């Protein structure tokens, strides 16, 4: 005990410096740990947001495909219109009467 006390008395500057150094180290480690936890948390949030972004991109893609389908539909309707109008010229009168009768049923 005496030896320890004597050593402390003789080397007090060294012990004080070591004490402050250790204190600084510990506080710095705690801060780093806190920052690392924050970074991990942020990584999870980013991952979640990226998944949402991917889902939205897929939805936008499906809507674009749907638009292409609708455009094809319009094209088909126009083609049908052209065909029908072309046929009208060669329709017999009976068919014309039938057309009006079907359209304006009593």
């Amino acid at each position, binding site marked *: 005990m005496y030896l320890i006390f004597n050593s402390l008395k003789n080397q007090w500057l060294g012990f004080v410096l070591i004490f402050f150094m250790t204190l600084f180290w510990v506080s710095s480690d705690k801060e780093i740990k806190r920052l690392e936890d924050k970074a991990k948390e942020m990584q999870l949030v980013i991952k979640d*947001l990226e998944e949402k972004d991917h889902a939205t991109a897929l939805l936008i893609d499906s809507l674009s495909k*749907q638009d292409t389908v609708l455009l094809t539909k319009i094209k088909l309707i126009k083609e049908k219109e052209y065909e029908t109008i072309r046929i009208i010229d060669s329709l017999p009168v009976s068919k014309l009467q039938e057309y009006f009768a079907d359209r304006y049923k009593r």
Partner: protein
Amino acid sequence: MIVCLLVNCKSISQIVTKDSVVTLTEEQARQVVADLVRYDVCKAISKVKDERIDNFLKKETEFKDQLAIKDSIISHKDAYIASQDKILSKTSRIKFGGGVGIISDKFTLGLPMLYGSVAAGLNKFKLGAMYSVKQYSPPNYGIVLEYKIF
């Protein structure tokens, strides 16, 4: 040739009384049928275009959502980078080092002193220990506290 029609539509009937008989020439009847076909097509196309408009509106909403998500990702990534920078600055603050060397006695080659030191540096401060050996003298050791001037 004449086509006889029984219609109650004012736009193509000549006499407006109910159940009147309207007479159209074949050419006129064909034109009316063609117009009706065009009208049906216009209605169908209008319906499809309404669907397209709905689709575009949905897409616009999704794009806005995606933009908000991307902005959020960017801001989170910025915060993540800032956090990593802080970690790096904290971890690299203390630098350890050490070395061995010789110190001469004045400017002579006699009685050189050998020494070794280890130190931890923090910004401009360096704290460590030194151990030195000199001929004809007992070994010496001590704490080194150094401040970097330049």
